[in-house]
C-alpha cells in the first residue's frame, strides 16, 4: 500500500491490517514518518519528531503481533502527543522558551497508558505557549498552519495535534482542552475532538494551565477512533485526586447509529456572539439530519451563557498565575543570565522565558487573586461558574444532548486576529461553558465554507460521553465530511 494511504488510515483500519498481518507497524510508522518529512515543513505541526523511539516501539509491536499474542486496537498505531504532556527523556516544552530544553523524568499517566496499549509515539505537537491561545500562533517557537489552507490558523491551543491528524502526519493524537483547546482546533482542521468529563482522564503529567478546567482528550479522524482512544486513557488514577473513581465503559459500545427519540436541545445563545451565517446554516442542517434520523429537537435558552467568557478569563488566569510560578529558573528550563540575586534571577528568567500572552494572563490572574480584589473577581467568577453549571443541570433535565457550533466561524487567517485579543478569545465562546461545567463535549466536522471545515459541538451531561459519541457516530454514518482530505496546497 502506498505511503499516503497508510498514513491516512484510521486507528480502526490500521488495526485490521496489523491484526491480519497485511502491514507491519514498522511499515505504518515509516509511512507516517515519511509523511511528516514530506509535509511538516508546510504544516509545522510538530515541535519534536521522535523517529527513533517510534521505530523501536513499532518493532516491539511487530514482535508482539508476530508472536501471536492478542493485541489491542492501539498496538503499533502511530500517535502524536501534544507537547504539554510529560514524556520521560523526551523534550516537553509546552511550546515555551522557558522549557526549551526540558526533558521530564517521568511519563504522564496518559502517555504511560498509551505505551502500555502498544501505541507508537511519533512526536510532540505544537501548541499555544502553555496552551494559552486559540490559534497556535502563541507558540514560543513557530505557528502551525491549517492543512486546509496554509494561510489559515489551525485553531488552538491543540493546533499541532489537530493539524497533524488532518494532514495524516499520525493516525490520531492527544490534545488538552481548558476552554476549547481540543474542540475549536478540531473544528478548524476538520477532525474529531473530544473533551471528556472533568476527572474522566488523569491529568497527572499534563503540564497545568488551569487545574480546575484542564482535561486531556482524543483528536481523531473519526468518531470510532475517539472511542478507541477513550477506552485506553479514561479511568481513575491514584496520582490525580481529581480523577473520578467511576468504572470506564467500553465506549465503542456507544457507536450505534441510532438516535430515535433522542432529545436535542439547541441553546439559542450559542448562535449569537459572532456566529457567521454559514456556520449557523451547517449546524442547523446537521440538526435537521439528526431529526430525519428520529431525534427530536427544541430551541432552548441558557441565559448565563454570555458570562462564560468573562468568567473563564478570571478563573483560568488565576489558576495559571499560580501554576506557572514554578518556572523560576532554579531547578530546570531556562535560567536568566548573570543575575546577582534570586529575585533578579526569577525576574530575568520569567521575562526572557514567557511570551506576551502568558505574561498578560499571569498579570490578570495575579490581580484577580490579590487581597482586596479576590472577592470582586475570583470569588464572583466562582459564583457565576455555579450559575452556568446550573444552566446545564436544568437543560439536561429536558434534553439528552445540547448541540451548537463548536466555534462561531471557520478558521481565520494566520495573523488576522493576532492584534485583536478579544476577537481571538471569541473563537472559544461556544466551547468554554463545557469546561466551566465540567461536562463532556465533542466536535465533529459538519460542513465546509470556502474550503475550510465547520465543526458541530455535541455537549452531554457529566460522564455522558457515550451519548455524545452515539449522536456523533449517527451523524458521521450519514455524512462524509470526515472522509474529506486537505490537498495541502
Amino acid at each position, binding site marked *: 500500500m502506498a505511503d499516503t494511504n497508510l498514513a491516512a488510515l484510521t486507528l480502526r483500519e490500521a488495526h485490521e491490517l496489523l491484526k491480519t498481518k497485511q502491514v507491519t507497524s514498522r511499515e505504518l510508522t515509516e509511512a507516517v514518518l515519511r509523511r511528516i518529512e514530506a509535509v511538516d515543513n508546510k504544516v509545522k505541526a510538530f515541535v519534536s519528531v521522535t523517529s527513533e523511539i517510534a521505530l523501536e516501539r513499532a518493532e516491539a509491536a511487530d514482535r508482539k503481533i508476530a508472536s501471536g499474542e492478542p493485541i489491542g486496537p492501539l498496538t503499533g498505531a502511530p500517535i502524536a502527543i501534544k507537547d504539554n504532556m510529560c514524556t520521560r527523556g523526551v523534550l516537553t516544552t509546552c511550546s515555551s522558551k522557558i522549557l526549551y530544553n526540558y526533558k521530564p523524568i*517521568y511519563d504522564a499517566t496518559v502517555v504511560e497508558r498509551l505505551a502500555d496499549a502498544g501505541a507508537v509515539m511519533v512526536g510532540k505537537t505544537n501548541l499555544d505557549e502553555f496552551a494559552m491561545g486559540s490559534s497556535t500562533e502563541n507558540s514560543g517557537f513557530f505557528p502551525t498552519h491549517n492543512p486546509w489552507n496554509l494561510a489559515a490558523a489551525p485553531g488552538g491551543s491543540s493546533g499541532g495535534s489537530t493539524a497533524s491528524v488532518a494532514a495524516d502526519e499520525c493516525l490520531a493524537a492527544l490534545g488538552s482542552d481548558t476552554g476549547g483547546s481540543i474542540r475549536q482546533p478540531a473544528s478548524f482542521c476538520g477532525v474529531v475532538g473530544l473533551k471528556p468529563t472533568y476527572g474522566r482522564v488523569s491529568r497527572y503529567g499534563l503540564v497545568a494551565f488551569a487545574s480546575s478546567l484542564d482535561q486531556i482528550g482524543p483528536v481523531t479522524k473519526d468518531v470510532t477512533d475517539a472511542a478507541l482512544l477513550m477506552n485506553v486513557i479514561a479511568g481513575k488514577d491514584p496520582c490525580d*485526586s*481529581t480523577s473520578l473513581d467511576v468504572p470506564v465503559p467500553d465506549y465503542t459500545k456507544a457507536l450505534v447509529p441510532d438516535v430515535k427519540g433522542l432529545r436535542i436541545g439547541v441553546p439559542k445563545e450559542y448562535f449569537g456572539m459572532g456566529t457567521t451565517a454559514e456556520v449557523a446554516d451547517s449546524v442547523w442542517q446537521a440538526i435537521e439530519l439528526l431529526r430525519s434520523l428520529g431525534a427530536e429537537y427544541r430551541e432552548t435558552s441558557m441565559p448565563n451563557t454570555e458570562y462564560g467568557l468573562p468568567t473563564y478569563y478570571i478563573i483560568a488566569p488565576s489558576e495559571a498565575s*499560580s501554576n506557572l510560578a514554578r518556572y523560576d529558573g532554579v531547578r530546570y528550563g531556562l535560567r536568566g543570565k548573570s543575575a546577582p540575586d534570586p529575585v533578579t534571577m526569577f525576574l530575568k528568567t520569567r521575562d526572557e522565558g514567557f511570551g506576551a500572552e502568558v505574561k498578560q494572563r499571569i498579570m490578570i490572574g495575579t490581580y484577580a487573586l490579590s487581597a482586596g480584589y479576590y472577592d470582586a473577581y475570583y470569588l464572583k467568577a466562582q459564583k457565576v461558574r455555579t450559575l452556568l453549571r446550573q444552566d446545564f443541570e436544568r437543560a439536561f433535565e429536558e434534553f439528552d444532548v445540547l448541540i451548537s457550533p463548536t466555534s462561531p466561524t471557520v478558521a481565520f487567517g494566520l495573523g488576522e486576529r493576532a492584534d485583536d485579543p478579544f476577537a481571538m478569545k471569541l473563537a472559544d465562546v461556544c466551547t468554554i461553558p463545557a469546561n466551566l461545567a465540567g461536562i463532556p463535549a465533542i466536535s465533529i466536522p459538519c460542513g465546509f465554507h470556502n474550503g475550510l471545515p465547520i465543526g458541530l459541538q455535541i455537549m452531554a451531561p457529566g460522564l455522558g460521553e457515550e451519548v455524545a459519541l452515539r449522536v456523533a457516530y449517527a451523524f458521521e454514518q450519514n455524512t462524509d465530511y470526515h472522509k474529506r482530505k486537505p490537498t495541502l496546497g
Partner: protein
Amino acid sequence: MADKLQYEPIIGMEVHAELLTDSKMFCGCSARFGGEPNSRCCPVCLGLPGSLPVINEKAVQYVVRTALALNCQITHQSIFHRKNYFYPDLPKGYQISQYGETPIGQYGWIEITVDGRTKKIAIRRVHLEEDTGKLLHVEGDRSEVDYNRSGVPLMEIVTENPPPTGLDQIQSAEEAREYLVRLRAILTYIGVNDGKLEEGSLRCEPNISLRPVGTVEFGVKTELKNLNSFRAVHKGIDYELARQEKVLRQGGKIVQETRRWDDARGVTAPMRSKEFEQEYRYFPEPDLTPLRFDPEWIEGQREALPELPDQKKRRFVEEFDLPEYDAEILTDSRPMAEFFEETVKLSGDGKAVSNWMMGEFLRLLNATGTEVEQSKLTPPHLTEMLRLVSEGVISVRIAKTVFEEMFNTGKRAADIVRNLGLTQIADESQLLPTVEQVLDENPKVVQDVLDGKDKSFAFLVGQVMRYTKGRANPQLVNQLLRDRLQARSG
C-alpha cells in the same frame, strides 16, 4: 505621666510541628529528617511540571487527633489553599496550606498552671500544610537547595487573641513556656511529633505586643524566631517585652517586624520588616478535593486517643499520692511518664520512684543534656537499685553513687556494687575496729561528747563513714559508737 502607665503583655503562639508520618504530605517520599541532599525527592515534592499532590491520610488523621486532644471542633468540610510566593526553597512557587475558616480543627484550648493559677488558653486553629526545602549557602556567591524536607507534613497550631468568653490568653513569658511544655506533652503523648525544639521539628514563633492596662486595642506586635529551647522561649519573650516597654516609655513606636533571638548574646534583633502585609494570593487548591469527615470516624479517632498528660497527672496524684508539682513534671513528656510508670510497675513503690526521678534523674539529665529516651539507665536498672536499698545491701548515700554510675555507664546496680565493693557493712565484728580507731584518734571530740555536745557525735559518725567509704550501716555505727563511748566513760 507616661511613666505611670502600666503595660500588659499579649502573647500569641504560632507553633509548627513536623508530623511523624513515614511519607511526605503529598507523595510517597520518606519524610525522615536528613539524608543525602535531594535523595528523598520525586516529581511531586520537586514540583516538576505536570505533577499533582495526593493527600497523605495518616497526616490528616494525626491532625484530627491533635485537634481532638486540644478540645477543638473538627471542620466538617476542610479545604486546602495555595499560599503563593517566590523563594528558591519553594519548588511550586506556592505552599499548599489551609487558610481562612476551614482548617481541620478550630476553637480549642489547653490548660496550663503557672504559680498555682490555672488558665485555659484559647486555640484558634489547627491546620495542615507542607514544609519547604532548605537553602544552603555555600562558599562564594553560590547557594544550593536541598528538597528533602520539601513536602514534609507540617501541622500549625495557633492561639486566639483575644480569647472567646470563658477562655484565656497568654500574658507572660512563663505562661508561654508552660503552654509550649503542655502542648509538646500532648503532641508527644499522641505520637504525632517528636517534640524536638533543638532540631526544629517543633518550632515556636510567638507574637508579642504590649498595651496600656485598661485598654482593649492590641499594640503593634513583633514576631520572634529562632527559639530553639524552652529556656530560649522564656528568655526571648522576656527580653522582647522589656525592649518594647523601654521603647514605649521613651515615647518611641514599636515597628511591626520579625525579630531573631540571639541565644549567645541574649538579645533579639530585626530580621525583616513586616510593615506591609505580604500578598500571598490565597485561593482554594484546585488539585485537591475537600476533606470530608464522617462523624463516626471522628468519634473513633477520639476513642483511639491515649491517656493525655492532664489525665495522667491527675491519676498520678491520686494513685501514688504524689505532690501536684511532681506529677506535672513527671507527665511533661511521654518518655518521662513511661519511665515512671514502668519502674513503678516493676518496683511497686511510686513514691520512691518519683523521689529518685525528681531528684537524681532530673539532675543528671539536665547536667548532661540527655533526653529520657536516650538515657542508659532503664526502669529495670532503677528497680534493682531500689531493691538493694530496701534490702539494706546499700545505703541511700551509696545508692546515689550507684545511680550516677548506672546513668553514666548503663551497668546494672548489682554489678556496680560488686565491682566497686560498695555493699553495706552491717557486721559488728567488721565495724568495731574502725569505731575503736576513730575514738582513739579523737580524744578531744570524745571528751566533748561525754560533756554533752551532741553535735560532736555526728563528727564521729562521719569519720567512721569516711573510713568505710560510706559503706557502714549508719544505724549500726550509731549504736556501736554509743556503746563504746559508754564503755569508755564508765
